[in-house]
């Protein structure tokens, strides 16, 4: 069992929660993920870790309550537990071989970009961060980023906070201004990562995308997480989760990730009178 030791709501559907998971915390590195299961009936859901603390034996998950399992997770209070956390899975973020990096986060992806950006800082790199959100109410981790990176650029789609721009526009503007990045790392909705890649490709900047796909075991057994990469099949769980964005077949990835959208929608729209949230069986 993995107890909730800290919980903070970041926006209407974004949560910051810390769980006891000493085995995972012992080994976790930026860029790696875990798979959790809420209860005996639960799905196995992969989430990139936002942070981990070896001494406290905890891992931090920052997530959007968007599907059934993340909604159930968000309803837990400090002291309550979930049944499973397994990890750390996947490969850690590569931090060597370059000096100046721009991290581009979109929406929830900012939560996952946070440990990556901090990992770069810890490795002594110069880090610029572009954080994009739809609107002001959805902004998360602004203070943390400001305190942690060299230059922080906040953008919103509607201009309600920061600059009114898409992350891609901001990235292009920075490059045009003469910023020299030898790597861009992007975490966010696949469609955003696809367009980030299109910009950096023009400028010849190597771009790494952190992918989140549908998974079951997370160890290379089920093959559900596979993507088309440079014409070949790769497994996000064991070959990733980070890949050269220019070699990912984004359209296939976007389509595969939408496979259970109907089920997700159904769970989101059903308001249970018992829980006030998602339907609870039994």
């Amino acid at each position, binding site marked *: 069992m993995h107890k909730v030791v800290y919980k903070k709501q970041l926006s209407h559907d974004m949560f910051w929660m810390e769980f006891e998971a000493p085995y995972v915390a012992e080994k976790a590195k930026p860029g790696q993920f875990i798979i959790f299961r809420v209860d005996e*009936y639960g*799905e196995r859901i992969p989430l990139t870790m936002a942070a981990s603390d070896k001494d406290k034996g905890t891992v931090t998950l920052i997530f959007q309550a968007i599907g059934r399992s993340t909604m159930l997770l968000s309803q837990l209070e400090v002291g309550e537990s979930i049944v499973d956390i397994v990890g750390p899975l996947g490969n850690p973020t590569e931090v060597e071989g370059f000096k100046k990096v721009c991290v581009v986060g979109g929406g929830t992806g900012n939560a996952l970009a946070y440990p990556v950006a901090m990992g770069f800082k810890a490795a002594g790199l110069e880090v610029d961060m572009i954080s994009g959100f739809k609107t002001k109410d959805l902004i998360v981790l602004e203070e943390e980023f400001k305190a942690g990176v060299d230059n922080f650029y906040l953008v919103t789609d509607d201009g309600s906070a920061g600059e009114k721009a898409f992350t891609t526009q901001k990235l292009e503007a920075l490059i045009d201004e003469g910023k020299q990045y030898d790597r861009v790392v992007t975490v966010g909705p696949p469609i955003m990562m696809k367009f980030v890649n299109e910009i950096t490709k023009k400028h010849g900047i190597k771009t790494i995308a952190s992918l989140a796909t549908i998974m079951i075991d997370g160890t290379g*057994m089920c*093959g559900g997480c596979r993507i088309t990469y440079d014409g070949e099949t790769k497994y996000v769980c064991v070959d990733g989760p980070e890949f050269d964005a220019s070699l990912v077949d984004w359209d296939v990835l976007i389509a595969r990730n939408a496979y259970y959208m109907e089920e997700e929608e159904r769970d989101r729209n059903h308001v249970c009178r018992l829980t006030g949230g998602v339907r609870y069986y039994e």
Partner: protein
Amino acid sequence: MNKQKHKTPMPAQDPNIRNNNFDEVALGYTKEDAINEAKRCIGCPKMPCVSGCPVNVRIPEFIAKVAEDKMDEAYEILTSTNSLPAICGRVCPQENQCEGKCVRGKAGDPVGVGRIERFVADYHMENVGNDGVEPVTEGPGKGIKVAIIGSGPAGLTCAGDLINLGYDVTVFESLHKEGGVLVYGIPEFRLPKDIVAYEVGTLEKKGVKFVRNVVVGKTMYIKELFDKGFKTVFIGTGAGLPMFMNIEGENLVGVYSANEYLTRINLMKAYLNDYDTPIKKHDKVVIVGAGNVAMDAARCAKRMGAETHVVYRRGREEMPARAEEIEHAEEEGIIFHLLNNPVRILGDEKNNVTKVECVQMELGEPDASGRRRPVAIPGSEFCIETDAVIMALGTRLNNLICETTEGLEMTERGGIKADEETGATSIPGVYAGGDACTGAATVIKAMGAGKNAAAAMHEYMQANK
């Protein structure tokens, strides 16, 4: 002596009822059936059946006890070499092993060893149970720690043999439930999950510790296990990444590996309403391949309500699945397209699967496997419309552990290199066996490997006390 030429029939659910439920297909012998079948064994002195069994079950001995209606004694003999009889009685390919060598098979059916084995195990479970099983506290292994990685058939067998010798056994499992392929792969209707849980429970009562959610190679490394005081390690992590054909359209939406489809159903219980894991109810499904896993996937798809088709590039004779599985699948209404091979998978503008393009094949000269090589007939392409495609083509090896274990040698095919007799790897104290070494094989072969390794580990630990 029962001179009846044919096996005593095993009652089964009617095909047109069972293809709508996940309950067990074969219903098992009654005591009378079991005794009747046991009397068909002539107790021949050469005992070819025993040599056909990877764990050398003392077959004629336990069958003789069944014939005498001494079920408890039969169970003792059976479990002296086989720690998972209820499982083996259901999923072993007996026709290639014990029963394949039975003298009675020369003129009629062999003795139904598997069916009798299943009866003895089930009878014991029902009438005796494991409530009285006590922890093993004494033995040559007392106080010596052993780590087993993976709780599939190889790991469970190895754990069972070592706990009986008094070792302090810990099994690390990467998933949230013990059993490996027995729980995520083999469906409920062939192997009820309660039986797996019962066998795991028996080991637990004897003192085996199970630790879930530990991926050795990620959560923990082999070296650390030695640092923690484990004296030997057995790696039984099973087969790895599912194989695909490398044809166009394989990553379209609605193309699954059999592993994924089966795991959703068996481990995650997606077919039951109160479990959260989603699964699509397809109108039509095409399964590619004809091994046991393909049959399992096809029969699951049928139970999920789909019109189910199996496409296989060779002929009936070459199908690798057990004859019984193929017969069951046919009875349940699964449609076979033999000598057909998919060449590409087509999708719509949303990347959803719409059809599989196949080409007809004919059989040419025998290939390296001894089976006749299928050759495409030019111009014979045709399409099967479908909503989903399940690829059941076997697995390639997973190197999570090799990557993180310095000095652990691999085979050319990417498996863990281990001595066939003892399971010893290139690292002293580290043993391995089952699909992790050989690639996808059978439950009983993995059990045989686990058993051999346990004996070698025991010898090693006693010598290095």
